[in-house]
């Protein structure tokens, strides 16, 4: 069978390759997503100091270190059996919100977005941030850069470093927020809100305003029917820092909701011989 290999998969965090097998008629017979990467955190975290986990596990992913940082920090809360004061919880959530600003900009303008903004017919060498700058203009580019840096700055104020923060402790965080920094964060947050609206408008105008795009997005090849899992608050609204895990089916109906600590009752890891994860 003819094999088409995509190696590496680009514009995503992490390593991957795809093997697509074609039958004699040239139709896709099967496709495999292979992850070539393994580092073994599950093993080498054992024996380390518990309080080091929020720092050590950030290295699972340097694009989303804040997620790993606070997952470990919350695990420490549970292990030490302490409930952080409300201020600490809010500061953690504030830092996570700063991270979301940076991460969504990264996804929208650098990783996933170029296919839409530069266009699905654009040559591969144009489908990247430089192509986005060419298409959207230098003014937008400077806004992108500025607000991405705001997200990083918010994490750095509270976490020490943006990539890889260090502030998480069992029962709280290491440093309080002073008034000067609070003001700075507020200004950056308000500016980011404006930029989010501008980005939504850009998506609306460039993508949703173009019927060719919309047809493509709604076509079979771009549609995957799947279950979704995410964290929600008491009103089933998305919450990135705390809440319950909610799973919805392909029609958006709730399939399951559970406390994060009970994940082993609901989540299992399947293993294949031909991929490390």
């Amino acid at each position, binding site marked *: 069978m003819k094999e088409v290999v995509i*190696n590496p998969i680009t514009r995503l965090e992490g390593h991957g390759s795809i093997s697509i097998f074609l039958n004699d008629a040239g139709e896709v017979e099967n496709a495999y997503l292979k*992850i070539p990467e*393994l580092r073994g955190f*599950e093993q080498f975290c054992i*024996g380390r100091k518990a309080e080091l986990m929020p720092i050590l596990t950030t290295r699972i992913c340097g694009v989303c270190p804040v997620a790993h940082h606070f997952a470990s920090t919350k695990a420490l809360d549970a292990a030490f059996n302490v409930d952080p004061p409300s201020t600490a919880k809010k500061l953690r959530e504030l830092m996570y919100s700063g991270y979301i600003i940076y991460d969504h900009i990264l996804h929208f303008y650098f990783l996933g977005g170029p296919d839409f903004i530069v266009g699905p017919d654009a040559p591969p060498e144009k489908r990247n941030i430089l192509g986005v700058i060419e298409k959207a203009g230098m003014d937008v580019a400077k806004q992108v850069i500025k607000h991405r840096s705001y997200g990083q700055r918010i994490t750095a104020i509270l976490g020490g470093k943006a990539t890889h923060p260090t502030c998480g402790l069992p029962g709280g965080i290491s440093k309080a927020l002073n008034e000067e920094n609070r003001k700075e964060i507020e200004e950056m947050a308000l500016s980011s809100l404006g930029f989010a609206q501008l980005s939504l408008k850009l998506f609306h105008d460039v993508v949703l305003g173009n019927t060719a795009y919309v047809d493509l997005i709604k076509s079979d090849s771009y549609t995957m029917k799947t279950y979704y899992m995410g964290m929600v608050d008491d009103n089933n609204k998305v919450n990135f820092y705390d809440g319950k895990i909610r799973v919805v089916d392909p029609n958006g109906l709730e399939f399951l909701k559970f406390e994060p600590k009970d994940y082993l009752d609901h989540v299992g890891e399947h*293993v294949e*011989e031909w991929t*490390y994860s």
Partner: protein
Amino acid sequence: MVENKLKIAFYWAASCGGCEIAVLDLDEKILDVVKIADIVFWPVAMDIKYKDVENMPDKYIDICFFNGSVRNDEQEHMAKLLRQKSKVLVAFGSCAHEGCIPGLANLHNSEQILSKVYLKQFSNENPDKVIPKPETQVKEGTLRIPRFYDTVKTLAQTVEVDYYLPGCPPPVKLIANAVEAIAKNELPPKGSVLAPLKSVCDECPRTRDDKKITKIYRVYEKVPEPEKCLLEQGILCMGPATRSGCDAQCLTVDMPCTGCGGPCPNVPEQGAAMISALASIMGVEEEKEAYTEEEVETLMSQIKDPIGTFYMYSLPASILKRKVIKQ
């Protein structure tokens, strides 16, 4: 348009992606980079494939920034390939420089790691005890994935390296300095570490009173005084043994340095340097007579997980390299 623009490549081996983010953290300076350079390979940001790199003439790339350590055969192949295709190869970030946190895997071998990850995790649903392997026959053909090595190696333990940019990730200031040196063709002699010669303590604004300590506190055991040296308050801080360039950022949130900048110049063993710094702050060195062997033992036993503390980022590059595992 600049004639004869430089050709720059970025690659990640066994890494976390934080080094790519550090490049983006150049912010507006990244626009200066693309003015003087074409980026010819950067998997996180551009759709260029391995075969495109293989088709490049030798020494086609002017400067390749290589992050991540080398812990499987694909990464070793890419390290050798990019060495062949690049005039200048920079070990970018702690993983390529020293092995970093994923280098702690050298306390185990591949068998132990594979068995832990795929067979012994609480979340494993693996009744057939499947473990990934380099080659698998499926009905459509053969699927290949890299061979997972026993030992994590640094880039310099794999190929010849021209420069090192330390840090996890490298501080933006150091990246910007390196880019400027490249643009002006003012790079220092080959083999240089592109970072200040000082230690993190030299950049740390906290005050020191040359106080001796006898008790070590874990970070959650003590709220430190904000303006005083953490080490002198009994909190283990790797600052004295760690190369600067980071503006002591972790200390700004009252957390100790854990050593990501790697060893100071002319002190190749970061862990040994820290043990020596501790011996001196605990007064063990100057006041040998004041302590019995037993008392020294008691002092030192307060330090939990010495290998993970002193060699958190530098185990593969250290003289220890790895744990010997008897079969």
